[in-house]
C-alpha cells in the first residue's frame, strides 16, 4: 500500500442537537453513534456538558469512560466567546479572557487537541497562545459565513496569525462558506415566514449575484418584504457564503480542523454546497486532519443523514485521491 494519507472523518454533536435537547438521544447515545461515524468526536461546550465554562470531574470521567468504551478520538471542543452575554454592554477583553481560559483547560482535561474559537476571541488571542502551549492545544477561528476566506475580517485574522507566528493559532473552515445555491431548508423557512414565491425568487437572485447583505435587505424591502423577510435575508446571508474551494490553498498552513456543514444529501450529493471541489481541494493541499460531519438542516433521521454525508465524502475521496 502506498496510499498517501488523507483527511479523517468524524462527527460534530451539533448534528444531533434537536434529538439531544429533546431527550431522544442521550450524551452516551451520541458517543455510541460516533463509533460508527468515523470515530472522531467534536462536542459543543455549553450544550454537551453541565458546569460550562468549566468541565466537572463527573463529566470528565463520563466522557473519558465512553471514549475508552467505544474507541473514540476527541477531535475538537467548541468554545464560545459570548461577547453579548451582559444586557448593558459587551464583555471587556479581560472578561472574555476570564471566560475562555477555563474552556481551554476543560478541553485539555477531556483530551481534545483542538479548540474552536469564535472570531471575537481575536481580541485576546495573544494572551491565549501561552495557555494553548501549556495545555498542548491548538486553537482555530471558525470560518463560518459571513467569515468567508476572502472576507476583510478573515484577511485581518490571517494577518494576525502570521504576525503572532504561533502554530497554536489557526483556522477552522466551515463548509457552509462554499455554497452554490440556497438550500431547500432555507427556502422553506422563507415560505413559513410568509414570503411569496416571487420574493423568495428575488432573494435567490440577489444571493446568486453575491449582493451585499445591506443592499439585499434594501432590495427585499423595496419588493414588499416585511421584517420577517429581512430576518430571512439575515439568516441566509449569515449561513451561505461564496468562498472558492480552491482558496483553501491560501490558508492550508493554518487549517487545524474542518466543519463539514451540510443541509441535505440528494442522490449521494449535497446539492447546494460545492463538496466535490472542497474534497478535491483538501486532498490537493494535503490536509490530513479531521473533518467533522455537521448537519444543520431540518428535522431528519440525523444518524442516517450523517452516514450519508460520510458516504459522499468517501466517494469523492476515492475519486480524487492520488494513489
Amino acid at each position: 500500500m502506498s496510499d498517501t494519507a488523507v483527511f479523517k472523518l468524524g462527527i460534530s454533536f451539533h448534528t444531533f442537537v434537536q434529538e439531544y435537547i429533546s431527550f431522544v438521544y442521550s450524551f452516551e447515545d451520541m458517543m455510541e453513534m460516533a463509533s460508527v461515524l468515523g470515530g472522531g468526536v467534536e462536542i459543543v461546550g455549553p450544550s454537551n456538558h453541565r458546569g460550562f465554562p468549566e468541565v466537572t470531574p463527573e463529566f470528565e470521567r463520563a466522557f473519558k469512560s465512553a471514549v475508552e468504551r467505544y474507541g473514540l478520538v476527541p477531535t475538537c471542543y467548541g468554545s464560545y466567546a459570548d461577547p453579548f452575554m451582559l444586557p448593558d454592554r459587551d464583555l471587556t477583553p479581560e472578561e472574555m479572557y476570564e471566560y475562555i481560559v477555563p474552556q481551554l483547560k476543560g478541553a485539555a482535561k477531556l483530551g481534545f487537541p483542538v479548540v474552536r474559537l469564535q472570531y471575537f476571541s481575536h481580541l485576546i488571542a495573544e494572551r491565549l497562545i501561552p495557555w494553548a502551549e501549556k495545555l498542548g492545544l491548538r486553537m482555530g477561528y471558525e470560518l463560518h459565513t459571513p467569515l468567508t476566506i476572502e472576507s476583510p475580517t478573515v484577511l485581518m485574522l490571517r494577518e494576525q496569525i502570521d504576525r503572532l507566528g504561533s502554530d497554536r493559532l489557526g483556522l477552522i473552515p466551515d463548509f457552509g462558506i462554499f455554497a452554490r445555491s440556497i438550500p431547500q431548508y432555507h427556502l422553506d423557512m422563507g415560505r413559513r415566514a410568509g414570503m411569496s414565491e416571487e420574493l423568495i425568487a428575488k432573494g435567490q437572485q440577489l444571493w446568486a449575484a453575491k449582493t451585499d447583505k445591506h443592499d439585499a435587505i434594501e432590495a427585499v424591502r423595496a419588493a414588499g418584504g416585511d421584517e420577517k423577510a429581512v430576518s430571512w435575508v439575515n439568516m441566509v446571508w449569515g449561513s451561505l457564503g461564496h468562498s472558492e474551494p480552491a482558496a483553501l490553498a491560501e490558508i492550508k498552513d493554518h487549517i487545524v480542523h474542518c466543519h463539514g456543514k451540510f443541509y441535505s444529501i440528494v442522490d449521494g450529493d449535497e446539492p447546494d454546497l460545492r463538496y466535490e471541489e472542497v474534497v478535491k481541494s483538501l486532498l490537493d493541499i494535503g490536509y490530513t486532519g479531521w473533518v467533522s460531519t455537521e448537519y444543520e438542516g431540518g428535522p431528519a433521521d440525523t444518524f442516517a443523514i450523517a452516514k450519508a454525508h460520510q458516504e459522499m465524502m468517501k466517494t469523492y475521496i476515492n475519486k480524487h485521491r492520488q494513489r
Partner: protein
Amino acid sequence: MQREGHVIGGGAQRPRPKDRDFLCEEDIRQTVLEGRPGLLFRLRLPSYRSLPLSCIERIELSVDGRPVEEAGMRLILGGHSYRLDELPGLSKVFWWILDQADLFVPWSERLQAGEHEVEGMMVTVEPYMTGGRYAMYYPSRRRLALASEE
C-alpha cells in the same frame, strides 16, 4: 457492547424530537412560596445550549387571559428562586440546556380543576452571533391541566 437487536441511532423506530416551547407540556401545580400562594409552571430553555441567566431578557405569562405581573414571578432553577429583575446581573449562573426550571406565579384564589389557557413569551439573547446582539422571541400557547392533589 451491543445487545442483540440493538440498533445504533435507534433506526426508524426511534422517537421523534419533541417540541421545544419554553412552556413544557406539564400540569400546573399549586404551591406556596415565600408565604404566598401561587402556581408553578415547568419551563425549558428554548435554545440549543446553556445560557447565563443574564441572557434571559423577559418572561411574560398570562393564565386564562389574565396577565401576570412581572414583579411577583420567580424563576426557580437548581433550588434557587430568582426575581426576574435579578436575572440581568446573573452572568455567572448558567441554565444548563437539559435542566428544566419552574416559574412561580402568585395566584391568590384556587385554580379550578381542569384545563387552563396559558400563553407567554420568553425573550433571550444568543450572545455570540457574528452579526451582533439581537433578541430571540419564543412565544408559547398551551392548554395545561391543573395537577390533581393526591
